[in-house]
């Protein structure tokens, strides 16, 4: 019954004008697999903030598909900060005037406090001896990945394969497109999302190789056991960024700018960086990278800015309707 009362009061509260809140609170709108990172990070920041200012701060989390989340922010979800896994999603908010145009220079490292890399997960013993992107386009290899056009995870794999093909001797955009086309022909399905791809590969035992984030490998081990698969690092892969930004419009309205800025700044503090490393995300701090070297083997990476001229351009060229992905499938 108290739940119902709570609900009723929530209904009233929400319908009535939102009163100025007595306690300071911050809403962090984030992508869908970030819960562990921020679940651990938030208490660290609360302690830090309390020590610094004596203020208690309530931190609220919202998680969902990255693009869905920024659309909600653009439509009025009052996020003080966004912590995403796709730069073009923050770009979208910048276009809408909610986030500064130069958001990626407001914080160090392209405003991405930690990174990850796209890797291969293969079956125990690597029976199809898959070592590099080229092996994925061979006959008889089945590749499992999330939808390359509709999911961030899938897009990252797509761009990684493209960049690898481009960097091969004699590589060209045309050749890269043909290569990616052959690779995608080896995909028996496009999974609904990263988690669905994992279930398909691990539980339903479909496919020879799964394309995913390095940090997911650890989650997979937790769920399915470490001995069940191997991680393969290709010769070149995408360094995926996790951009963060202040939502100017909201923090100015709510008067939370200082707090929100501190919340994001703290991600680069030693504690914040170590928290990322503990959650299998590559910290920016060189020192910590060394400390966690066993967990993060050296791998040659590129960024979307290096090869594709920025996230917005990469998105427009490859994933908009009529882009390179559509050209692979539609004849005209």
């Amino acid at each position, binding site marked *: 019954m108290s*739940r*119902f009362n709570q609900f009723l009061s929530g209904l009233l509260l*929400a*319908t009535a004008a939102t009163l100025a809140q007595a306690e300071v609170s911050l809403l962090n*709108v984030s992508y869908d697999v970030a819960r562990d990172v921020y679940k651990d990070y938030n208490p660290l920041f609360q302690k830090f903030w309390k020590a610094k200012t004596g203020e208690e701060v309530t931190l609220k989390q*919202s998680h969902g598909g990255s693009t869905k989340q920024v659309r909600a922010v*653009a*439509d009025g979800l009052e996020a003080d900060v966004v912590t995403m896994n796709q730069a073009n999603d923050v770009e979208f908010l910048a276009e809408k005037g909610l986030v500064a145009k130069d958001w990626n220079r407001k914080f160090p490292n392209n405003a991405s406090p930690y990174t990850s890399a796209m890797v291969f997960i293969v079956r125990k013993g690597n029976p199809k001896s898959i070592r590099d992107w080229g092996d994925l386009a061979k006959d008889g290899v089945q590749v499992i990945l999330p939808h390359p056009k509709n999911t961030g995870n899938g897009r990252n794999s797509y761009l990684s394969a493209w960049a690898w093909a481009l960097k091969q001797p004699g590589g060209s955009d045309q050749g890269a497109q043909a290569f990616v086309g052959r690779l995608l022909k080896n995909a028996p399905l496009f999974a609904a999302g990263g988690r669905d791809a994992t279930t398909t590969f691990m539980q339903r035992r479909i496919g020879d190789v799964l394309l995913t984030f390095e940090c997911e490998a650890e989650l997979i081990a937790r769920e399915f056991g470490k001995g069940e698969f191997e991680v393969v690092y290709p010769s070149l892969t995408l360094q995926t960024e996790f951009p963060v930004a202040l939502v100017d419009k909201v923090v100015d309205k709510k008067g939370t700018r200082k707090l929100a800025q501190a919340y994001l700044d703290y991600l680069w503090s030693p504690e914040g960086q170590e928290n990322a490393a503990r959650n299998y995300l590559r910290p920016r701090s060189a020192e910590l990278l060394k400390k966690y070297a066993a967990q993060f083997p050296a791998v040659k990476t590129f960024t979307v800015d290096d090869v594709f001229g920025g996230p917005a351009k990469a998105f427009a060229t490859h994933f908009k309707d009529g882009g390179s992905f559509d050209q692979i499938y539609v004849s005209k």
Partner: protein
Amino acid sequence: MSRRRAAQEPRWVRWSLTAIGLVFLFAFLGLPLAAVFVEALAQGWSAYVAALAEPEARAAVGLSIGIALAALPLNILFGVAAAWAVAKFDFRGKSLLVTLIDLPFAVSPVVAGLIFILLFGVNGVFGAWLTAHEIKVIFAVPGMVLATLFITFPFVARELIPLMQSQGKDEEEAAISLGASGWQMFWRVTLPNIKWGLLYGVILANARALGEFGAVSVVSGHIRGETNTLPLHVEILYNEYNQVGAFAAASVLALLALLTLVAKTVVEWRMQKEMAMLNAELPPEKTA
């Protein structure tokens, strides 16, 4: 409710139809339900209970039930009113009206969420006004109730219309011509007749309201512990590789669906009691 029948199918027909029906239900409903519980209990009973005892899970259960309870009465009222008008009267454009009632089913849940964003989002039709008055509709509970209303809109009406149509209006007309008032006729004649259909409609609408993901997901904002319903909670847990938690939460929804059993049994029991009382007072002849 067991009625004696002079006319029955031959035994082999009865048996084979029952077998076909049961095999179909087993394959399409029984196995998925079993699979949900197998996943939910994969790490044992204590992990299952722990997953449900999590404060966020409990908040999600409360919110889901609250939204369903808020959406139901309005849709029941609408369903009875619409079915009464459609089934008992002839007027122009009736098929059009019925089709419009069906339409929310054909709208993809995501689109159903989207239309409320188009209306109440900051850039929506009423966005500027709502922002000026600091009223929150979407990304708050009211928007989620609205989306649920839309999704469950047709159930009660659609359940009642074919039933009331097949019953015709003779009984009601008789009641009126015997001098009953409109409300008397409704409570004494119509409602007892449509009780089953109404119950099914309510149960279906309730199940759907609890289980709805797509539309609610678009308007919820996904704020943990505040605007996360149980299905949204399930998605987040699944994406976080918390399979046991996700399926445990899903199993709660499945169990809520089994409440049908309880509701139906209670109604049946009360009806039998009423019948017994009626039979004691009146001569046993029941006229159709």
